[in-house]
C-alpha cells in the first residue's frame, strides 16, 4: 500500500468510529446519568455508554496504530525505528497532537480495559473522565483530518 492509500484507509476507519462516537455523545448529552446507581438502573443508558466507550477505544486504536504511522509516512518522517514516545513528540512538534493529552487518554483507556474494584463514586468519576476524553479525542481527530486535508494529503 502506498502512503496515500494508508492514510485514506486510516481515515476511512477513524471516520466510522468518530461518527458513531458523536452519536453516542449526543445521546448521552441529552440525558446524562447523575450517578453510577442511576446509570446501572437504566439499560438504555448503559447501552449508550457501552457504545461510547467502545468507539472511544476503537478510535484511539485506529489513531495509534494506523493514523500515526500513516501520517508520519506521508510526511516522509524516518519513523520506522522510533519508539512510540518519539513518534508522539514528533507529531506534537508538527502540530497534530498534544502528547500530554494523548497519554492521559491512554491511561483512561487502559483503565477501561481492566475492571477495577473501585467504589461506585470513583467508577462514576472515571466514567465521566472517559466521556470527556472521548469528546476531546474526537475533536483532536477532526482537527488532524482537517490539517491533512488542508495540505492536500488526504
Amino acid at each position, binding site marked *: 500500500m502506498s502512503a496515500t492509500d494508508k492514510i485514506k484507509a486510516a481515515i476511512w476507519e477513524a471516520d466510522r468510529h468518530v461518527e458513531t462516537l458523536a452519536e453516542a455523545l449526543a445521546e448521552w448529552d441529552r440525558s446524562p446519568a447523575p450517578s453510577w446507581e442511576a446509570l446501572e438502573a437504566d439499560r438504555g443508558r448503559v447501552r449508550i455508554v457501552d457504545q461510547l466507550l467502545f468507539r472511544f477505544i476503537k478510535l484511539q486504536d485506529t489513531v495509534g496504530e494506523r493514523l500515526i504511522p500513516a501520517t508520519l509516512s506521508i510526511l516522509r518522517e524516518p519513523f520506522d525505528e522510533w519508539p512510540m514516545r518519539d513518534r508522539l513528540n514528533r507529531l506534537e512538534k508538527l502540530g497534530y497532537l498534544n502528547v500530554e493529552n494523548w497519554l492521559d487518554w491512554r491511561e483512561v483507556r487502559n483503565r477501561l480495559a481492566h475492571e477495577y*474494584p473501585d467504589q461506585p463514586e470513583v467508577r462514576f468519576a472515571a466514567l465521566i*473522565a472517559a466521556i470527556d476524553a472521548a469528546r476531546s479525542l474526537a475533536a483532536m481527530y477532526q482537527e488532524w483530518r482537517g490539517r491533512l486535508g488542508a495540505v492536500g494529503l488526504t
Partner: protein
Amino acid sequence: MRLQPKEVDAIAQAARDAFAPGTAVFLFGSRLQDAARGGDIDLLVETPEALSPAELVQRRTRFVSRIYRALDEQRIDVVIATQGQQDSRAVVAMAKRDGLKVAQV
C-alpha cells in the same frame, strides 16, 4: 524489588507532579519478587488527605500518564488510599502489609 533506578525516578517524579506533599508511593505485587519476571507495576499511593472521586481520578490519570511519558506505556496498576483511614479493600490491606516505599512527595 524488580524496578530499575530510572523506573523508580520516573515514579517519584510523576508522584511529585500529581500528588500533594506528604504522599507516599509503595510498590507491591509481583515486582517485589526477585525470582518472578515481567508483570504489572502495582503501586499503592497513600495521600495525606482524602480526595474527592473526580480529583482522585484526575490525579491518578496524571500520575500514570507522566510515567508513560518517561518510560513509554507500561502496565501500571495504581490503588489510592488515604493515610490513617480504614480501608475495606483487600488489595489495600495486602499492599500495606507487603508494600515497599519507592517514593515520598
